[in-house]
């Protein structure tokens, strides 16, 4: 019940933001939300003790799926794009998951990285898709409804928010139950889990699939916000950014990924505007400070505040 109330508040807040905020803030919120959804998937995966350095693969698949719909088949409907992207992400994850679910630790991380880099290579080689330059996409309608220019992005943000909140609630429900405990058990000791008769492979596979579908959705949302896709979405630095946001927020909550993504975007924007020559250094120092002083992620701040209150 508490979670439902929190979800309702979060959604109301996001809708208010989508309707009232200036355009640049709507854009930032969309990007932060998109990354938050990807990181949510990563957090699900991290519950089983696995970190993927290749979520860019699904982020990119989602972005390109959305863009190709508008570019190749002239389907410029945002709802179709978002759903198709999540489906595409889930589908590819269902396929690659068969292989990857056997891997653990750093090998899981590196194999997922290798796969995303192979997709990167394929995209760079595709002259028809604009190679590294990428191409533009335009979404004009939502479930067939058309909106005035400038209004459409606000509608997309509301739609994205609704989906993200529903996804977060579902993940919350899933992890709060038997499945979540099973995932933690796989992380802690896989062998015992199999001795108890459960299949760690199945747990990892399903969580990987969820992470893939969410990353695909996030990719399409980001593509809708930016209006452009390019292979950089699948590059390892993009994947690394997701991992960083996950660690920044901490893995113990499902709101944390979204808050962390918003803070990350804000941090990067401020750093590159006020310190254009040393923005990488500023970002690095902020990262170190957070890891040193908030080792369990920013969310531990919330925990402490809640306990003292």
């Amino acid at each position, binding site marked *: 019940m508490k979670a439902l109330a929190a979800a309702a508040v979060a959604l109301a807040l996001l809708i208010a933001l989508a309707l009232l905020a200036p355009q640049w803030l709507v854009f930032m919120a969309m990007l932060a939300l998109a990354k938050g959804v990807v990181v949510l998937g990563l957090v699900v995966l991290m519950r089983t003790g696995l*970190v993927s350095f290749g979520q860019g693969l699904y982020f990119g698949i989602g972005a390109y799926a959305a863009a190709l719909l508008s570019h190749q088949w002239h389907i410029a409907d945002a709802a179709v794009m978002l759903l198709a992207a999540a489906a595409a992400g889930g589908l590819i994850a269902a396929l690659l998951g068969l*292989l990857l679910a*056997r*891997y653990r*630790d*750093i*090998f899981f*991380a*590196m*194999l997922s*990285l*290798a*796969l995303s*880099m*192979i997709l*990167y*290579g*394929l995209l*760079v*080689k595709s002259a028809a898709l604009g190679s590294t330059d990428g191409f533009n996409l335009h979404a004009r309608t939502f479930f067939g409804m058309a909106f005035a220019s400038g209004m459409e992005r606000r509608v997309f943000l509301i739609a994205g928010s609704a989906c993200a909140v529903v996804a977060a609630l579902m993940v919350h429900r899933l992890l709060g139950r038997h499945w979540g405990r099973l995932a933690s058990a796989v992380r802690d*000791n896989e*062998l*015992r889990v199999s*001795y108890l008769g459960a299949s760690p492979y199945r747990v990892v596979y399903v969580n990987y699939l969820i992470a893939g579908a969410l990353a695909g959705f996030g990719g399409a949302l980001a593509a809708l916000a930016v209006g452009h896709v390019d292979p950089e979405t699948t590059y*390892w630095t993009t994947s*690394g950014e997701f*991992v*960083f946001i996950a*660690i920044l927020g901490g893995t113990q909550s499902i709101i944390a990924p979204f808050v962390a993504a918003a803070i990350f975007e804000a941090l990067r924007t401020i750093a590159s505007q006020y310190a254009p*020559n*040393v*923005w*990488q*250094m500023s*970002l*690095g*120092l902020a*990262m*170190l400070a957070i*890891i*040193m002083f908030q*080792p369990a992620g920013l969310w531990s701040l919330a925990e402490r505040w809640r306990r003292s209150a």
Partner: protein
Amino acid sequence: MSNILPVAFDGIAYGSWLFLMSAGLTLIYGVMRILNVAHGSLYALGAYAACSFASAWLNGGLPAAGSFGMLLLAAIVVGGLVGPLLERGLLQWMYGKDEVVLVLITYAVFLIMEDVIKLVWGVDSLLLPEPYALPGNFSLGGLAYPAYNLLLIGMALVTGLALVWALYRTRQGKLLLAVIHDREMSMAMGINVSRFYLATFTVGATLAALGGALTAPTVAVTPGIGVEVIVLAFAVVVIGGLGSLGGAALGALLVGLVRSATVRYWPEAELFSIYAVMAIVLIARPKGLFAAQEARKI
């Protein structure tokens, strides 16, 4: 036959370069369980320092052959200064954290170093062609090759053999193997693990800087050169099996040969040849070529 010789030579030369980079990375991972992203920064620092040192030497009108010594000196200075600084100043407070968190810490260091390098050396490329041109060319299958590549191959061999000797033939090396095998037990036996961590990181950092210093004469040293080598070195180390020196050597050679064959026969695929090798090796051998057996903990 005349086709295979150049492909093999280019592959071995590229593999030697990869080995210099990945030896330090695999050593640090083997001992400290840190996948060190800042390895790329140390490589870049080594390259920049080599340019500064060797240029100062050459501008001083000293004999050109001495510039090779300057390359080595630059690597030792960078490794000996920055290595301990990072380990004592930052990493020693972070041991025991999750492997992923450690990756992020070294990534943060990498970001900071990128800007530090920019502030110190600027954004213009640095050139140091003298040591590259000095040994001249030799001919192989009718084509000219720079003799500098032989030097690179030699350095990789010497480095590899020196590491093996130090690990398996010296007392300190054997103690280090004990630390790798079981850290807690080693501490209980009275081994000063902290000291070994410092030494390992310093040696690893020096190897990274050496890789950079030896590369500097062959390329234009530009901002961002560190980024390119990180993932390459990671791939090599993972292919070989994390923490395995022999694995790194074999992985480097494999990647080098595959790359040069791809360039020759299928240039379009060069971009992902390395990742394809990595994926195929991992699919066939999930923990790399030379993975250590791990006890199943119940």
